[in-house]
């Protein structure tokens, strides 16, 4: 009897394990993705193009935002997805660490001309001369100004100086509104600590060396940028109040900070033009480029990329997928679907900003339809004028640590814990240590 029970249990366990079924890795025509979703026409139309072109491939999209832990665990366990979609700055770091594989052969096989992709985007996915991913969307950072607030303070929005830091501080003081010790309108938000690399670049320095193997945080120009931007915030309100006030913004709603006159000016990602145009089309704003201290317009490029993880089971089909998803014709199909989708809701289509220059050229000549929306009509040409003037930080194997280190430094200065010099000296030490740990320098 006892033996029979044991046999029954073993049989049940064996049946249960067998019931787990075939892994996608074992099926030759199954392609799995991670970090990608199908929230709008941009995604669904492009996936539709791929499915039409490769009907024999069973594409399985695991919807959801990219999760670093999930991805690395999958790579470490030897069962990664076939494709990963993530911010380029992260993918660059993964490439430098060997979590994703080079796609040079794939690009050769499909005769992909990398020169059609924006150089700053390509820089983010290139490590030691090898390409590790294909850039997807491309966003830039630009200034969005609240016209009524600035004009009421006697400032012409078109001439708000981002090159003359002293004048900028002075004009910020004029337009900031504080009532009974409580801030009512932020005059100028430099977007610290997130946009600190932009301000360092405005002062002529990139925070990571071109090879990604050193941090440049205690450079006097970086210190100067830190001192200026943190002083700019602190002159308006203590950081705790400033941030709490910002946290209360309904950034993606009709009652956003511009509509409610809670903010006069800030640098922002270009996608926000479409957000404003959709949610508060009547808000009176000026979109203009950020300038460096010589008065030259510039910007930082962001966005995502597709890559093939190390150990992916179907790299060839994955290659077909990422080439198709980032091709000009696919983007144009997606842009048309997006435009038609928005038109059905009576909304303007402010274009699709991709890292593929040919795709953008076709989209903005054939598909773009601002439908008389002033924000889009004024803002989109600014975005287009900036795309070729963009920089991007190079990929670094210690990228997450470096980002954390300079963000923490900015917070310490904003909170009054340290001076800019002391915070960045500490940040440099921490960054050096992080790099030493990763690359053994």
């Amino acid at each position, binding site marked *: 009897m006892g033996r029979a029970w044991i046999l029954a249990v073993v049989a049940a366990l064996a049946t249960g394990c067998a019931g787990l079924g075939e892994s996608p890795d074992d099926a030759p025509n199954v392609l799995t993705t991670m970090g990608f979703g199908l929230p709008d026409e941009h995604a669904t139309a492009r996936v539709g193009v791929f499915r039409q072109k490769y009907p024999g491939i069973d594409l399985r999209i695991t919807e959801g935002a990219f999760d*670093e*832990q999930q991805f*690395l*665990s999958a*790579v*470490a366990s030897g069962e990664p997805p076939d494709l990963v979609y993530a911010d380029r700055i992260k993918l660059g770091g993964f490439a430098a*660490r*060997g*979590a994703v594989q080079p796609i040079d052969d794939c690009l050769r096989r499909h005769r992909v001309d990398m020169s059609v992709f924006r150089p700053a985007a390509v820089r983010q996915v290139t490590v030691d001369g090898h390409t590790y991913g294909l850039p997807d969307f491309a966003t830039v950072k630009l200034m969005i100004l609240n016209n009524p607030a600035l004009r009421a303070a006697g400032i012409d929005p078109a001439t708000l100086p981002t090159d003359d830091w002293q004048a900028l501080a002075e004009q910020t003081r004029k337009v900031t509104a504080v009532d009974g010790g*409580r*801030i009512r309108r932020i005059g100028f938000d430099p977007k610290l*600590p*997130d946009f600190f690399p932009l301000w360092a670049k405005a002062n002529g320095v990139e925070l990571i060396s071109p090879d990604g193997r050193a941090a440049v945080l205690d450079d006097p120009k970086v210190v100067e940028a830190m001192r200026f931007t943190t002083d700019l915030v602190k002159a308006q309100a203590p*950081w*705790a*109040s400033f*941030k*709490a*006030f910002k*946290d*209360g913004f309904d950034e993606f709603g009709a009652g956003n900070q511009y509509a409610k006159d809670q903010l006069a000016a800030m640098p922002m990602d270009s996608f926000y033009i479409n957000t404003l145009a959709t949610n508060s089309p009547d808000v009176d704003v000026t979109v203009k480029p950020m300038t460096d201290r010589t008065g030259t317009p510039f910007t930082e490029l962001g966005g995502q990329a597709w890559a093939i993880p*190390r150990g992916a089971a179907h790299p060839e089909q994955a290659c077909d997928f990422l080439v198709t998803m980032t091709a000009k014709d696919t983007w144009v199909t997606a842009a048309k679907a997006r435009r038609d989708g928005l038109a059905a809701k009576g909304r303007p289509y402010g274009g699709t900003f991709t890292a593929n220059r040919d795709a953008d050229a076709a989209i903005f000549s054939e598909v773009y339809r601002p439908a008389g929306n002033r924000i889009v009509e004024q803002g989109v040409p600014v975005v287009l004028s900036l795309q070729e003037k963009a920089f991007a930080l190079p990929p670094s194997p*210690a990228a*997450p*640590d470096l980002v*954390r280190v300079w*963000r*923490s430094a900015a*917070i*310490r200065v904003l*909170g009054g*814990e340290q001076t800019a010099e002391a915070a960045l000296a500490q940040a440099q030490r921490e960054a050096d240590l*992080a790099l030493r*740990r*990763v690359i053994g320098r």
Partner: protein
Amino acid sequence: MARQRGDTRAAWMFLSPWIAGFLVFTAGPMIFSLFLSLTRYDMLKPATFVGLDNYQELVTDPKVGIALYNTLFFTVLHVPLLIVLALALASLLRRAGRASGFFRTVLYLPVMTPPVALAAMFLLLLNGQTGAINELLGWFGFTGPNWTTDPAWIKPGLVLMSLWGVGSTAVIYLAALSRVPQELYEAARLDGASSWKQFWHITLPGISGTIYFTVIVNTIASLQTFTEAYAMFFGNSEVADNQGDSALFYVIYLFQQAFSSLRMGYASALAWALFVVIAVITAVQVRASRRLVYYESEPR
């Protein structure tokens, strides 16, 4: 004799699923993490043995001190407040009569809120400029602090939020209170003991075993606190680290080291250090309990 052997075998059979689960899902990973703590391992390359380097670094890493301080600060504030509040609520519930069932349900409902939703809600409620809590304080003439952005107030704000889940402890106390012999109160009343004296000399000793249990459990949970603070201040990579180190709890730092910096070896060492800290604190509590906790079954 044969019957005893049969009982033992049956006991092992019933215990075996738990033992198997413990070995596979708890003891196994613990032993593996002990091994990892002696290595440098980034999940992408094979682990390399580094001896006690990770433990040496742990002693000199200033962030460990900050994270430990934040965690202890939270624990020291959270546990006593939770116990006192839960006891007060349970005592009130005891007097609620027929409505006790309804209030018990109401009190327990917040415990069902998913932690991430709770964090999102409290970010709005605690906002220093526009939040409802400061609005409420304003009605009474107080100017509330910036709970979510002022480094001095972030931890008290998190403690305030943590009391949202007081219901589960209160329900445990309610059960304990109902088990205190009523004749003791009757005798005390006949002797002219005040309500406070009854509470101090009868209620508290009567439920001291339960209080001891909740202190231990909540202390361990507080030392491992993660979800709410992470969801509020670290969950979105775009805004992570935007409030400095004020909410950097020990397990959050451990998580960052493991899954952001990919330092599995160091993170494992951090985990074992926390295990030791919890073990020491629990041992102190167990020792203190010998003097402070009364069990009905043992002679005083």
